């Protein structure tokens, strides 16, 4: 092609400006490369990025968009639609507190108030020592043994305020 045409085609790939560290960038690109072949790859990729980094950094969005040949708006739209994806780094542990009806019937409203008060934060916030992020969740599928919370990926049932405090002490003690 180059020989016949007098026009030189210079391939240009615009690299989005980014505040990601080299390691973060590598992690995002690795996830994209691995999962891109999947049909409907965007959500698996976002899970992959959040799994690797703990969140989907704002500056990962243009990178993922470029890799999947989507617009940044497309990717941002998906990230922001789903409650699970976060664009702020979480604390060392993420605690999900169930707000749904079955847990309400056995004291979830009081537990939620206790959790916010004892940690000194609201939902979607992280304690000042960086240990715990608090999130609401709508059903953990433990409706006969509520109130329920999930500490990282471990379900806990029959969580009284006292038990909540114990679990937070345990979480803070672990890495």
């Amino acid at each position, binding site marked *: 092609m180059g020989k016949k045409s007098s026009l030189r085609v210079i391939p240009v790939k615009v690299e989005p400006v980014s505040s990601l560290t080299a390691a973060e960038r590598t992690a995002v690109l690795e996830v994209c490369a691995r999962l891109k072949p999947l049909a409907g790859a965007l959500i698996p990729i976002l899970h992959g990025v959040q799994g690797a980094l703990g969140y989907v950094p704002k500056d990962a969005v243009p990178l993922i968009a470029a890799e999947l040949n989507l617009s940044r708006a497309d990717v941002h739209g998906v990230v922001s*639609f789903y409650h699970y994806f976060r664009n702020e780094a979480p604390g060392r542990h993420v605690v999900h507190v169930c707000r749904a*009806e079955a847990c309400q019937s056995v004291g979830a409203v009081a537990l939620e108030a206790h959790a916010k008060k004892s940690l000194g934060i609201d939902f979607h916030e992280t304690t000042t020592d960086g240990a715990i992020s608090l999130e609401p969740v*709508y059903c953990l599928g*433990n409706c006969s043994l509520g109130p329920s919370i999930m500490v990282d990926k471990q379900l806990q049932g029959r969580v009284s305020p006292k038990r909540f405090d114990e679990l937070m002490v345990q979480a803070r003690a672990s890495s």
Partner: protein
Amino acid sequence: MSRTRIFVSRDAAAQGVGANQVADEISREATQRGIDIELVRNGSRGLLWLEPLVEVETAAGRMAYGPVTTDKVAGLFKADFMRGQPHALNLGLTEEIPYLKKQERLTFARVGVTDPRSLEDYLDHEGYRGLKAALALEPAAIVTMVTDSGLRGRGGAAFPTGIKWKTVLATPADQKYIVCNADEGDSGTYSDRMIMEGDPFVLIEGMTIAGLAAGATRGFIYLRWEYPDAHAALEAAIAAANQAGYLGDNILGSGKSFHLEVRLGAGAYICGEETSLLESLEGKRGQIRYKPPLPAIAGLFAKPTVINNVISLASVPIILDRGAEYYRNYGVGRSRGTLPIQLTGNIKRGGLIEKAFGVTLRELLYDYGGGSLSGRPIRAVQVGGPLGAYMPESQFDTPLDYEEFAKIGAMLGHGGIVVFDDTVDLAAQARYAMEFCAIESCGKCTPCRLGSTRGVEVIDRLVAGQDAAKQEIVLRDLCNTMIQGSLCALGGLTPYPVISALNHFPQDFAKQRAAKAAV
């Protein structure tokens, strides 16, 4: 002498009350005493108030002890529980516990019995007999069998499963899909979770049969992220099934192929709605689609798609194995077969009860459930998830049957029953229903997106007594708009808990006014 088998559930609900620690303690104690045991991490029997439940295999059958805490383990060994000896926690033979004995376990036949990670165990307990029967049939014959069984969608909408399959079979395409809706977001439900954790192979078998019936070679399980244990169980089972030739390019040498993968959701209630789920699987925002076209004609990636709930698909193997008639003989009216009921919330004996349709709420709440956990009178139950009606005691004699529930403006949904005692404030529950809809609305249609937020505001004004009579008119009118004008069930059903609370418990909406008047 062979090693004694001890069962401690791996189910997430059991883990949540300490099953892992109990299992570790049993292993440690056995090692210390020089006793050789085989510790099996089974699914849960569904007797959740007895978790962590420990079972020991004896000559007479499996003996149950529960709820066991780590500090009780040494005492159990001392009492020789290994030979099923008496102990304060001894519950007798598991199968003789009335809660379990009175059930009709078809779909859940193996849950709690087998090791969910063992394909061998599955095969030893009648596993994959449905698939073998299906492989000998023409696709149309499989569809007929499912239609004749009377099986209706267990996700909540209760659409006949066989009809969906028939449409996909009749629609020619180069690629078709089987999608399992495992986005079990309704509060008060966990039967999908329990079966995926406790017997993942039965779901895989059901989906494979659906693939044969509809001519689909690829399947997806759309699983909510909140179920990490189910995810691990499914991945392990899919790997084992692929390895043994039950999935893949040449299923049991038949020349038929079926490939299955799990995809995780990301915390959006709306993705339990089938078209929203398909959008999400395609990697997009989970916004619902207009229907038609039906997913059976143009579903995932615009190809014909069977989309069924976990329990619907997991009920297929037994239908293929035992025949349509066998399944159909359970149930009442047009509700055939069994329903895995989840008795939850403020209830003394909460758990999973698989029963033929026709059992009444009262039997479930008092005979099975033993009344409220708090010991206070049961004031209301919500059946069918966050979009289900609040039912007062006067409706507790309603039999569990899709049509009987529809008659009184209620719905069975996915079979979840949430119990509330007399401390419940139904005005607060009605407000929560609107709040939940506002948080989870996909935003596509106005009645749901805006109606839910306006609903919260109107309820607040009504409860505060600002022009109460007028607010009630506005609220009912708003609910009517949402019911008539919403695109899908989220906006269309959110008014049910609201209206039922308003109709059956009007005093809860007038409490603040009454208190003010008294001052």
